[in-house]
């Protein structure tokens, strides 16, 4: 049984990664999960310098999902390179760095600083709904998306994943734009934009009013978008959005994903990533799938 996949030239021992922002820098979950088992660890978003993020409350629960408005709090790329990469490199797993910025220059700045870093791929987050200054505009405007992709691509030494926002009329338009911009892979979906109101206090539960909506509730939107994008571009896809178990992961692969990422499910079950891997293996065994690659885009 072969569970390995190749994404933009990088070999992953299995298709399962972590979703940026839900797994810290890997260290936090290393008590709960053997990181050696993961295809890859996608670390939380890093920017050129420290960001403090949004005020609290940053977290709200919804029916089958959650909202977050962390606002990309991060210590900056320098601290990340110094502290987190050496930790992760002790494990046999791929390292993917999610990068954040408010301007094209900031994104490029992070990519430059990562040029000599010992990482495997870069994931360009052009879709965080929680940062007002720019992120979202990049993710919802095809021209901007293409431009920022091409600029970061110029300076990135590692294969470049671009992470797409689901909060758009036509996700294939954005996908084609980042493909034209030189992306090596796309990942989707980032969070939907949601709101929850405390009806007794008559104010939004999140200090930021709105937040990114994730978790099992959003899976049907994610699967649909992965399938749409699969049918419209040639790049490999990392699919995510509500994946909780092996069956969910298989659904994304059949829809067209080569890799899958586990996000909110980690909060529901700290062992979720390993459960997903084991679930994929069980499915392959019971269905007689020899190579996990057979599944990619296998939906009729």
């Amino acid at each position, binding site marked *: 049984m072969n569970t390995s996949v190749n994404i933009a030239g990088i070999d992953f021992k299995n298709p399962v990664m972590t979703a940026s922002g839900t797994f810290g820098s890997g260290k936090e979950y290393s008590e709960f999960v053997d990181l050696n088992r993961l295809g890859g660890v996608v670390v939380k978003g890093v920017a050129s310098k420290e960001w403090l993020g949004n005020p609290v409350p940053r977290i709200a*629960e919804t029916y089958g999902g959650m909202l977050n408005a962390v606002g990309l709090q991060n210590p900056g790329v320098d601290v990340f390179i110094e502290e987190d990469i050496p930790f992760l490199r002790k494990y046999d797993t791929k390292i993917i760095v999610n990068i954040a910025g408010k301007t094209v220059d900031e994104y490029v700045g992070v990519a430059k600083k990562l040029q000599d870093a010992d990482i495997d791929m870069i994931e360009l987050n052009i879709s965080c709904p929680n940062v007002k200054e720019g992120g979202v505009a990049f993710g919802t405007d095809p021209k901007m998306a293409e431009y920022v992709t091409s600029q970061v691509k110029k300076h990135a030494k590692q294969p470049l994943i671009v992470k797409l926002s689901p909060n758009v009329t036509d996700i294939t338009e954005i996908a084609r734009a980042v493909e034209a911009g030189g992306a090596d892979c796309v990942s989707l979906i980032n969070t939907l934009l949601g709101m929850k109101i405390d009806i007794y206090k008559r104010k939004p539960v999140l200090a930021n009013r709105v937040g990114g909506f994730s978790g099992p509730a959003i899976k049907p939107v994610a699967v649909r978008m992965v399938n749409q994008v699969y049918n419209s571009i040639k790049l490999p896809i990392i699919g995510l959005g509500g994946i909780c178990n092996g069956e969910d992961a298989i659904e994304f692969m059949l829809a067209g994903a080569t890799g899958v990422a586990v996000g909110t499910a980690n909060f529901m079950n*700290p062992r979720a990533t390993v459960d997903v891997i084991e679930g994929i293996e069980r499915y392959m065994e019971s269905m007689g799938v020899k190579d996990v690659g057979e599944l990619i885009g296998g939906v009729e």
Partner: protein
Amino acid sequence: MCQDNFRDKQGAEIISNVEIADNVYRMVIRQEEIAVNAKAGQFINVYCKAESRILPRPISICEVDRDKGLVTIVYMIVGMGTKEFSDLDSGDRIEVLGPLGNGFKIKDCDESIIVGGGVGAPPLLELVKNLPGKKKVFLGFKSGEFLTKEFEKYAEVHVATDDGSIGEKGNVVELMEKVGAKGSMIYSCGPKPMLAAVKDMAERLEVDAQISLEERMGCGIGACVGCICKIKADNELGYIHKKVCKDGPVFDAKEVMF
């Protein structure tokens, strides 16, 4: 596959689950690993059975019985998750993860002051059990009380209620001033305004204080950066963000910016 060296969610049997005050429940579960490893001030993630509620509920450890492998939590019904917990019966099972966070640092002082407000009181019980030296406990409640009998086994206890139904009428900080609380360390847990008053008082009295904070959590283990608080720092802003779940929930009062 083998996960022997890794921590995980654990099933636990509910030994008892009874209402000890209006909407306040005390649940005893059998969970040896937590009982053996827990320190006062740490918490556990309690998972809901309802699949609509996907996030764990952080609840402080109130007491542990290492020998019997028992863990006690005391919680108030404030929403659907705690409502769900209150409906469980002895014999039912529940999933938990812990112990999580850093507990109180037990200082070997002659005299300690312990200040709890409402459902902030529970984590102080295991603390008081383990504290050396003299200890005075001040508990504040809206109306009614719970756990004061348990605290009285280990220390002198003073109670204040907002409505004066039990003990002194007024808040617990006023009560402390009245009684003239003295000691070389304050340990406290309760609502934010109370903790802010405790911090002020500690500064006035020039005693150290450890306070336990609360914040909305995603993961409870330091990964989501959902639960931050402002901690004084020597940088431009004058503060950094720390995680209540991983760096706390107990912090040095001097460092916390409300």
